């Protein structure tokens, strides 16, 4: 009993420790964003200072382009998520309810495309995009995000569909439902929690993406990742402003995650605790 309590206590301390370790960079980012550039640049860490909103003012100021970049981030993230789900649902439906000999291989193959380092395909994609005029283009970026997330979306939607007993789909079939009716009246309503968390994850991954955003866009279609990177300029590093910009970039997604965390946890553990 006592030793049990001790173990629990120790585990609690460990958990808090790990959580703090993970959270610390974000905390430091947050603190730095309220400092002046001089305070931000000190070698000795400084936890106590009089906070200033100067960096935020600069970051949001007219001409900084924050809203332009935020709009691009939101547009590409939402559009790629919607297109991704629209493509993944029929694919996952076929694989979950009408599997054949090659289904397992297909799934693994699809996810294995995620093993390829992005740099490995950068040159061909860049050349193709350049040739068809998709560089620095919101549509081009959306397509990249869709392609990037599609394997994960298909895999997740597939596993949620697999949690739906096949009998239910067959019952709908016998009851006279077409494939579309089965999908919209039976399968999608049952997989809704899973679809929601898949959508959220895709949204977050697209929002946070920086490699493709920075390489494939310049200004017109640039996202918040490009905006943050722009603070590392020829004139030097602007830690405080960069931190403020980063806080502004991650804030929407953290707020979204905060409000949907119950949905997320429910969706991600849907099959496990059923």
């Amino acid at each position: 009993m006592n030793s049990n309590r001790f173990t629990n206590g120790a585990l609690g301390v460990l958990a808090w420790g790990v959580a703090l370790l993970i959270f610390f960079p974000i905390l430091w980012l947050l603190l730095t964003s309220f400092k002046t550039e001089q305070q931000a640049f000190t070698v000795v860490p400084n936890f106590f200072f009089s906070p200033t909103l100067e960096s935020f003012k600069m970051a949001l100021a007219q001409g900084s382009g924050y809203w332009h970049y935020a709009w691009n981030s939101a547009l590409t993230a939402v559009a790629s998520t919607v297109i991704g789900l629209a493509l993944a649902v029929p694919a996952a439906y076929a694989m979950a309810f009408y599997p054949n000999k090659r289904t397992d291989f297909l799934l693994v193959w699809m996810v294995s495309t995620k093993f390829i380092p992005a740099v490995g395909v950068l040159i061909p994609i860049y050349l193709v995009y350049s040739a068809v005029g998709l560089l620095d283009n919101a549509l081009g970026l959306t397509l990249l995000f869709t392609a990037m997330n599609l394997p994960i979306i298909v895999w997740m939607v597939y596993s949620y569909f697999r949690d739906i007993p096949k009998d239910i789909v067959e019952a709908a079939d016998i009851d006279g439902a077409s494939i579309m009716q089965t999908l919209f009246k039976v399968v999608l309503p049952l997989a809704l929690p899973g679809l929601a968390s898949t959508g959220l994850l895709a949204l977050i991954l697209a929002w946070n993406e920086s490699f493709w955003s920075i390489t494939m866009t310049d200004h017109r279609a640039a996202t918040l990742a490009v905006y943050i990177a722009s603070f590392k300029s020829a004139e030097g590093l602007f830690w405080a402003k960069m931190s403020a910009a980063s806080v502004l970039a991650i804030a929407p997604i953290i707020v979204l995650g905060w409000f949907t965390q119950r949905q997320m946890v429910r969706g991600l553990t849907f099959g496990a605790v059923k």
Partner: protein
Amino acid sequence: MAIVELKNVAKNYGSQIKGASSSNAVDDFNLVTRDGEFVVLVGPSGCGKSTTMRMIAGLERNTEGEILIGGRDVSQVPPKERDIAMVFQSYALYPHMSVAENMAFSLRLKKRPAEEIKQKIDEAAQTLGIQHLLERKPRELSGGQRQRVALGRAIVRDPQVFLMDEPLSNLDAKLRVDMRAEIVKLHKRLNVTTFYVTHDQVEAMTMGERIVVMKDGKIQQIDTPINLYEFPANRFVAGFIGNPSMNFLPAKHVDGVASGDGYRLSLDAAHRATMASRGAVDVWAGIRPEHLRLSDADATNRIEGTVDVVETLGAVTMVQLSVGEHAVSAQLPGHRKVQLGDTLTLTCDSDKLHLFDSESELAIARESTAAPSAAEA
């Protein structure tokens, strides 16, 4: 209502599923139902009974042969156009819909008028005693209630054929007996051709007008319950139908007497007649436990052994004996006091004896009462 015909139906999963064997899951299945008949498909798991039902439903395509419902070949027709209703072992209710919505689903898809839908649901709910559950979701129901809803969903459709795939397996023993009777009553009322799949031979015997016994994808015998019991076509059917199951003893047949170490059984006249042409051969002698009784050591038919297991059930006492190196079970009257280790002599009437060919395991029929499907070389 319709006659269902299966002609040389076979199913081979070979090319469809990874790791599936290349042999047929169902092979050369032939059956013609009467209109409104209650047919039970029974057999051990993996015997192809569910596959056969799924082929009738259209959930699996038959790879050979024809399936006719009401005279129409439906082999290439999708399930929703076959006018069938199915009750699944898992009930397969739509979890996000209320009981009423579950039952209305198929009618709404057919765009029936709302009043008609409501009327049909009310009728079915009344028949099944689930009027008070109509607004509930499936997860708020007990197993028995879900089963009723699943039946209700099937009957509102007025289908030509009912298919029931082990519908009672998930219920507890007592409820299963109640629902068994209820389904039979329901069938009498609706008089719709029904296929019922089960692995439970008691369910098959009590519910089926005709029973199809299957094993390894092949039909072993199709007959009425009583004929299966009295004239099993082969050793498998003899052992599968009847509870407790039949005893089998390897015996040497010489001049109308089948005997082995510890037992001697003489054949009746009709059996002698068929065995006369075979002469001295090895056979399997089959005796049902309920046909054995205690007797004196000098009886004409006798089986001697020592008692291994005694199960006192009250009405009857089940005894297991070692006879030579074989086990024989017997159902004795409940008042008999039997001790472990006792040596007993059992006897049975010669007309209750079954004989099976030792090679093919087919029944060796009596001359005059040969069952129609009992193959006799």
